[in-house]
């Protein structure tokens, strides 16, 4: 093999490799991109129907209700303009509390209720998930003092 042909082969190899990687990435991106919406956007119809997405906001004070003795829990998430009820079955994270920020992963169910399959309350030192902090309409998101 001449050096020229060798180089040609190497370039071809790299092209094929990069092409395969790009194809793989595109394939993997499909269905695995999760969009984030606040309750106002969901009510405005921005959120996709029949697809999972993430919803975030504050858990309304006094809205947390359990069906006694079961894992089912309901609460209301708000961005201080609009609110959406959420239903979830399972363990809530340690940091989940009324009056604080949360993000849920799931899809819209019947009757305008968001059915969550995962609830996150991961947050920074200021007790607020950043996405939630930005999506709130209140200019001063409630900070939890210690």
């Amino acid at each position, binding site marked *: 093999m001449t050096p020229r042909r060798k180089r040609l082969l190497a370039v071809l190899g790299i092209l094929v*490799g990069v092409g395969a*990687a790009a194809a*793989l*990435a595109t*394939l*993997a*991106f499909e*269905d*695995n*991109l*999760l*969009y*984030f919406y606040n309750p106002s956007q969901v009510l405005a119809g921005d959120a996709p129907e029949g697809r999972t997405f*993430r919803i975030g906001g504050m858990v309304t004070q006094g809205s947390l209700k*359990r069906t*006694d*003795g*079961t*894992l089912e829990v309901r609460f209301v998430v708000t961005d201080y303009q609009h609110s959406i009820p959420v239903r979830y*079955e*399972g*363990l*809530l*994270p*340690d*940091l989940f509390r009324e009056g604080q920020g949360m993000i849920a992963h799931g899809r819209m169910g019947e009757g305008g209720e968001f059915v969550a399959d995962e609830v996150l309350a991961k947050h*920074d*030192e200021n007790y607020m*998930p*950043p*996405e939630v902090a*930005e999506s709130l309409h209140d200019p001063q998101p409630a900070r939890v003092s*210690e």
Partner: protein
Amino acid sequence: MIPELGHFALILALLLSTSQSAFSFGGAARGNAAWMAAGRSAVVGQFVFVAVAFGALAWSFVQQDFSVLYVASNSHSELPVFFRVAAVWGAHEGSLLLWSLCLAGWTLAVTAASGSLDAPFRSRVLGFLGLISIGFQLFMLATSNPFTRLMPAAAEGRDLNPLLQDFALVVHPPILYLGYVGFSVAFAFACATLLEGRLDAAWARWTRPWTLAAWLFLTIGIALGSWWAYYELGWGGWWFWDAVENASFMPWLAGTALIHSLAVTEKRGLFKSWTLLLAVSAFSLSLLGTFLVRSGVLISVHAFATDPERGIYILGFLTVVIGGALLMYAWRAPRLKSEAGFEATSRESFMLFNNALLVTALSLILLGTLYPLFMDALELGKVSVGPPYFNLVFLVPMLPLLVLLGIGMHAAWKRGLLGTMRTRLFAVAGASIGASVIIGAAAYGEVRPMTTIGFALAVWVMLSSLLVPFARLRGRQPLPAAVLGMVVAHFGIGLTTLGITGVQSFKVEKDFALGIGDGATIAGYEFKFAALRDVRGPNYVGVEADVVVSRGGEAVTVLKPQKRLYNSGGNALSEAGIEVGAARDLFAALGDDLGQGRWSFRLQYKPLIRFIWLGAILVAFGGLLAALDRRYRQRVTARLDERAASVA
């Protein structure tokens, strides 16, 4: 007073980093030995003053000096002393100081061990390390000073995040940082080489043990993080493809590729410019990781907006370091010609594939990690990339990598595969597939395609690794530490693969609502909620459940999961109850009081999960063995011999 001393020490350290850089570069350029010596003295001074600054901050924490803003934000009067020290690196400012201390330590080690290097080259390496120090120390002093006072002093601290009040998280950041920062040595070596425009086998031999050392710390750091997430985050996952995890995993992948590529550069004088590029990438990814994790941009680019000074500094610093290194690369790399060719089945080709596959996985993970940032910055909506993306883009390159790994270890440099080895490898491959089917069928009663592939690859990698010492001893060939290290590390990769396959294929995770006396069965184990009691710790109160586990009527263990409420801020935290076993872990986490005397529980069965971390420990140990190979110390020993001879 002490915090002011710390602040002052930090300023002195910055001045010394500056002189370290200036004297080293100046001395190297002018051939002035006195200047170069001054540069080395500055290294020692810099280390001392960074250590003083670090000590001052630790002292402020131990003494509970709540007039220091950083202490007040991350400590609490009830926090045990052990965690007060760990709180030093619990947040942004202190972790930067830890970073700087690690860098000063590595620089000192390089200075001490590099006496046999060509003097101007050695000075240039120290010069580049000094530049990085300047960047970090300036960043701290300008935007993130850990010694800033709080006026008036706080009466009580805000406490360290309860999640961080844990042994693994105390040791995780320092070890991880030793790894991150350790790549700065390979980076500085690469930059100095590019500056001088020549690269020989001695360069690669010199860089290898340093790269291995950094990489083994990073390996342990990542494994510790995964282990911590498993038992402390409460829900039993061991890897989430979280941006923070990816930030530490990407430099690891680059470092792994670099170790292999360095071997080729040393032995065969090939892949020269590629090796340099990897050295630059590994450190760039470490920098990116440090900043992304600590500055909060990963979750939201607008975190920059709340603190534009930091954001702009970080972007500027990254641009200067990465951009500068790449510019030098573009300028000098064409000079570095590789010296020889190789055959398609030689070890060189296997290393080439190793690198191509690792870099592919790395790039796709980088894409998935940064994609949400781009979308956010371009106002295209807030997205997150789910774990299935990462699973797919990681798995696809890793499968062929593991297959090739088993063969590549036995390939000779330059020439093709030897005949006898071929027969043995075919036998090993057959045995692996057989073993995989047997494990699946006998232990778990199921044979599934992906599981079979996973187990087969795990056994293949392990057996094929063991074949190396076997063949060497039979052929009466020596087994140097570097080869043994490779065998141990690759065997560890096989073990980790075994663990991952086992957990992902056969784990059971379920949530239950249980009253006292109720039971639930998963994977053949009966879990019974037997009792509930109050517990009290130094800075928390809580409840503890007794979960009695039995199998087929025979008692197995009692799990004691806790739900804690920390006195400061009222943070809740679940402490899982875990029964550790080689074959499986049994896991119970206690949730909330559901009313009617019932509590929520998450019960889990995790087969083979321990092998994930056991494998990682072996990988790191293999790295250690290889780093300690005599070959890397030969020149130093030779010099000592000379000295001894001259004394005699």
